[in-house]
């Protein structure tokens, strides 16, 4: 039996976990630079705040309904997420963290003696998470991961189920799938949804009972076939306990304010590349292909006349002579690239980096015309990571990296890092 556990309105719930005075009030969490809404409490949904809406469009709504605003505090969300994943191992041997607020679990049949029912197991999970982490969760159980996803959605949308939905019989599956819209199904995007609708398939039940499996294979590849089998109760997607290393690594954050000059942009580039190198080292990989891009703010109007401002964007890729995860190696190539791309006279909103051609550290090929990467340099990277882990991010850094940059993110209403910084822990009188 598979289960999907998912936190309701994760970011807002995390804020409430350490600030219960937000309970019962409309609360929104804002994304990078406080630009737009990335999470809403039920109350905020009810007053009509949309997902992804820019802050300036909802100023009146916020005023009118006293909506509470939180800047995204990923340090807190990340810690609560890892506590949740670890807590779930008390209930199931196999836990796959699927995203920051979702996890798949696999329940062996041996558990069946311990809990009176899957309904009871789900309730126990809900109660424990509510007491330990003060987070509201929904639990869905099904014979496959896809059915667990469906069950979880049912648990969320039907309050009478009290947050737990179990699909373990033909009747319960028929009931859940018959009014389950095809576009909400796991793995069905807007294109497949439109294609299936055109062919008369509008609910998950209709897709499950499709007569001609080759028809599905022709139109939706083997993944579509897997989906149908999963709906029929045959597991095709298994738990991925150890996630495979990433094939692409990207860092691209918007600046807190628009930046016109080369110095700040190179500085941001250095910082982002440093992040990318940390990510590479964490998964013990090396990369060779670097793409640098930068662009202006496409929504900006020229001050004064209100006409759309002149825009500029550019990107370029380069292939290093060897694989590496050493920051100075990348910088030697990336900085000339950004100097080349930059056109003066524009205010830039974003610079970003994408690393490709990623190989495991242990399987790299020696370059023909170069002795790189230098073993010593790779070793230094690891040491720096360990130092920064112990003493705080960027404590050891390149001299060209500013510590408190001008372009850093705007986070107007950031809550404390209650669980990850001794200086910011909760205070009780």
């Amino acid at each position, binding site marked *: 039996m598979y289960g999907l556990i998912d936190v309701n309105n994760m970011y807002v719930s995390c804020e409430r976990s350490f600030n219960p005075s937000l309970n019962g009030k409309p609360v929104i969490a804002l994304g990078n630079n406080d630009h737009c809404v990335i999470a809403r409490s039920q109350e905020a949904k009810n007053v009509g705040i949309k*997902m992804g809406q820019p802050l300036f469009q909802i100023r009146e709504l916020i005023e009118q309904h006293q909506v509470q605003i939180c800047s995204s505090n990923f340090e807190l969300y990340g810690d609560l997420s890892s506590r949740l994943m670890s807590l779930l*191992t008390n209930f199931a041997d196999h836990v796959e963290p699927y*995203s920051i607020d979702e996890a798949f679990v696999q329940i062996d049949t041996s558990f069946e003696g311990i809990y009176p029912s899957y309904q009871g197991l789900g309730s126990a999970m809900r109660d424990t998470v509510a007491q330990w*982490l003060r987070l509201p969760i929904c639990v869905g159980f099904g014979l496959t991961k896809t059915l667990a996803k469906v069950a979880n959605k049912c648990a969320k949308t039907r309050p009478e189920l009290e947050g737990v939905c179990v699909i373990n019989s033909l009747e319960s599956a028929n009931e859940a799938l018959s009014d389950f819209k095809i576009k909400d199904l796991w793995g069905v995007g807007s294109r497949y949804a439109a294609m299936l609708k055109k062919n008369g398939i509008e609910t998950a039940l209709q897709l499950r009972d499709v007569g001609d499996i080759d028809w599905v294979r022709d139109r939706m590849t083997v993944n579509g076939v897997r989906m149908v089998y999963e709906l029929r109760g045959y597991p095709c997607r298994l738990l991925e*306990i150890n996630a495979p290393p990433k094939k692409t690594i990207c860092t691209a954050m918007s600046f807190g304010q628009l930046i016109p000059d080369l110095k700040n942009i190179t500085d941001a580039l250095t910082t982002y590349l440093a992040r990318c190198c940390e990510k590479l080292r964490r998964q013990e990989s090396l990369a060779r292909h670097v793409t640098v891009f930068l662009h202006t703010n496409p929504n900006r109007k020229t001050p004064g006349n209100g006409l759309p401002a002149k825009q500029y964007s550019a990107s370029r890729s380069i292939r290093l002579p060897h694989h590496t995860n050493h920051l100075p190696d990348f910088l030697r190539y990336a900085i000339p690239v950004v100097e080349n791309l930059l056109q003066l006279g524009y205010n830039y909103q974003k610079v970003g980096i994408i690393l490709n051609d990623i190989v495991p550290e242990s399987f790299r090929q020696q370059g023909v015309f170069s002795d790189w990467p230098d073993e010593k340099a790779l070793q230094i990277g690891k040491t720096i990571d360990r130092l920064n882990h112990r003493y705080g991010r960027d404590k050891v850094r390149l001299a060209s990296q500013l510590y408190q940059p001008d372009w850093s993110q705007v986070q107007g209403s950031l809550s404390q890092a209650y669980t990850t910084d001794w200086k910011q822990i*909760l205070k*009780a009188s």
Partner: protein
Amino acid sequence: MIDTLDPIPPGNIWAIDPSERVPIPFYLSTVQAGFPNPAENFLRQRLNLQDLCVQHPDATYFVEAAGESMIEDYIYPGSILVVDAALLVESGKIIVCWVNGACTVKRFVRYGKLVVLFPSNAHYTPLYIHPETDQFLVLGVVVRIVSKPPRWDSDQLKTAQDYVRTHRRE
């Protein structure tokens, strides 16, 4: 279903692999020759305060105390409280909770439907919580108090020195 547009930084998503959580109790040596270290068979992991104070790592929070309302229970301003949210809240236990939005540490007493929060300082009065009208949420039970020992001021130090002077053998 995740409620977001921005990608989560992968550094904030941690895969939990319980099989990797293995403390290694004994020291494995590859020494081939020479006199073996007789202490080797007795090497154990060094004691760790975390093991003593934290029973449920996923449910444990650290909270800094402020104010003097719990001073008779050895909770001073600046003390770090180890708070376990997995334990049952029973009458008589010291808990950390939110009352109408304010975070507080007090002794919890249930009296019928009423909840009363007792300070341990004669200068403070108990707090009555009415389940219908007050917002009340428990963080957890205080399981340890971490404080620095109090410092002597110059008077106390002087008294001690005077004591030594008067009691010293001639």
